[in-house]
């Protein structure tokens, strides 16, 4: 990607974003909106700067929960996808459930986890993030391990390759792009889950619980937490796509390729 290309793809959204903030700022002044209704961006920014210490602390708590859940869920998801590939029956039992669970807002389960652990524990939230990440990673990586080009399998069979060789030479490399797609989906989802999980009780130290706690206080501060939450989500997303581009830049546009 050339510098020129970066500039040409970056300026439209930046321009739109700036225009949106300006319009927001002007609208608040023009219609004389009160802070409880909608604070101006400048006021939110001021609150963000003024409260930067506690905002950062809250972001670290939520960020840690998201990160721990993301890492543990990814490891477990990858491990399970290998087991599913190895044991056909297990796959037939688990795969449809995993796909179905991905479509259900299982985040509500955190209320149950909260009852199972101490009120000061971060475990229920991390458990929730782990669970959600686990299923996303499991479904995608399992697909990548299974959906190998038929010609590749025939070819390896013609070389009398062992199942382990097939795994090493075809299935795992084939699953790598699927893994990063899963990570790209799971990373922001982990952050969202970490926030939402905080709405269901537990210690009042993360961004999610701060947002609900400040609802009755300073609206500008509440919005500062929202801003921090957005930045945290963005950070997770950017890191995940950076990891993806690092490992896939040699693969070309389509992971499946075009053999015609």
């Amino acid at each position, binding site marked *: 990607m050339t510098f020129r290309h970066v500039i040409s793809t970056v300026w439209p959204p930046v321009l739109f974003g700036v225009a949106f903030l300006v319009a927001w700022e002007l609208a608040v002044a023009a219609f004389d909106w009160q802070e409880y209704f909608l604070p101006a961006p400048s006021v939110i920014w001021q609150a963000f700067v003024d409260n930067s210490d506690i905002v950062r602390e809250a972001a670290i708590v939520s960020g840690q929960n998201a990160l721990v859940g993301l890492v543990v869920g990814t490891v477990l998801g990858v491990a399970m996808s290998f087991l599913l590939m190895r044991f056909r029956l297990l796959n037939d039992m688990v795969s449809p459930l995993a796909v179905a669970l991905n479509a259900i807002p299982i985040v509500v389960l955190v209320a149950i986890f909260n009852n199972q652990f101490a009120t000061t524990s971060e475990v229920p939230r991390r458990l929730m993030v782990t669970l959600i990440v686990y299923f996303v990673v499991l479904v995608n990586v399992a697909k990548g391990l299974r959906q190998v080009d038929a010609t590749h399998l025939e070819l390896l069979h013609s*070389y*009398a*390759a062992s199942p382990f060789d097939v795994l090493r030479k075809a299935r795992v490399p084939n699953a790598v792009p699927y893994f990063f797609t899963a990570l790209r989906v799971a990373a922001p989802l982990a952050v969202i889950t970490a926030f939402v999980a905080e709405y269901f009780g537990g210690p009042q130290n993360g961004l999610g619980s701060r947002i609900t706690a400040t609802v009755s206080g300073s609206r500008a501060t509440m919005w500062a937490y929202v801003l921090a939450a957005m930045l945290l989500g963005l950070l997770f997303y950017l890191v995940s796509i950076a990891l993806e581009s690092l490992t896939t830049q040699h693969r070309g546009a389509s*992971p499946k390729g075009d*053999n015609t």
Partner: protein
Amino acid sequence: MSDQELRRQHVAWPGNAVEVRSVIKTFNAGTPKQVDALVDIDLTVESGEFVSLIGPSGCGKSTLLRLIANLTEPTAGSIVVNGKPARQARVDQDYGMAFQQAGLFDWRTVVRNVELPLELKSWDRARRRARAMEMLELVKLDEFAGHRPWQLSGGMQQRVAIARALAAAPELLLMDEPFGALDEMTREHMQAELLRITAEAGTSVVFVTHSIPEAVFLADRVVVMSPRPGRITELVSVELGDPRNTDTREDPLFFKKVTEVREALRGIGAKSADELLIEGVAEER
């Protein structure tokens, strides 16, 4: 020296490359969906010989190739490759195979694609690389060694696939419509290249195709097959001599052989299929 003689010189196994004896292949045997894919197949491919399998869709030509490759087992009969059972030949990597899809691995460079069969044979890295580069020179793609497959055209990808199939120096090459997806010009070029390469490497070839001119241009012998049930109806010897080039395609004998194969495919040959079968067997002697 003719291409075929050149091929024979290289061959370590003095016997036939392939011997298919009384082979039957039935799918879904004993069910209402039973398909007699192949019945009473007898075929001998001599060392250094180039044999084309041609026939309409469903005649079992690909199935026959897959049987020789031991990618599937015959219902009855025996298949001997390089003097050993087909399964053993596969385990020993006695043959190389190329498919309609080049089937290259996008996550590997071109040269590492060619190295794949050698990795599975546990060759060390330096030896692998040297051999793969040699093969890429053979298909005239050595300057693309570091490229990714998707950066290459379809014809170039097929050449890489052929280099890969030849990397472990197999005495037999099994090809299933490898040029089927290529345009006509590329296809003709690839056919000439294939003849040059297999002659140089001394390889026997069994080549499945839909194309009559392709079958005739390439082969020492064209095996004509018919469907339902799949069987060999005619063997056409193509004495076009070597080397074959663009001029060969305009040779009256080439047209004569193309016509002969076409008529065999239509089932309107002058002689009955049985007589030609006997004649074909006699020519092998």
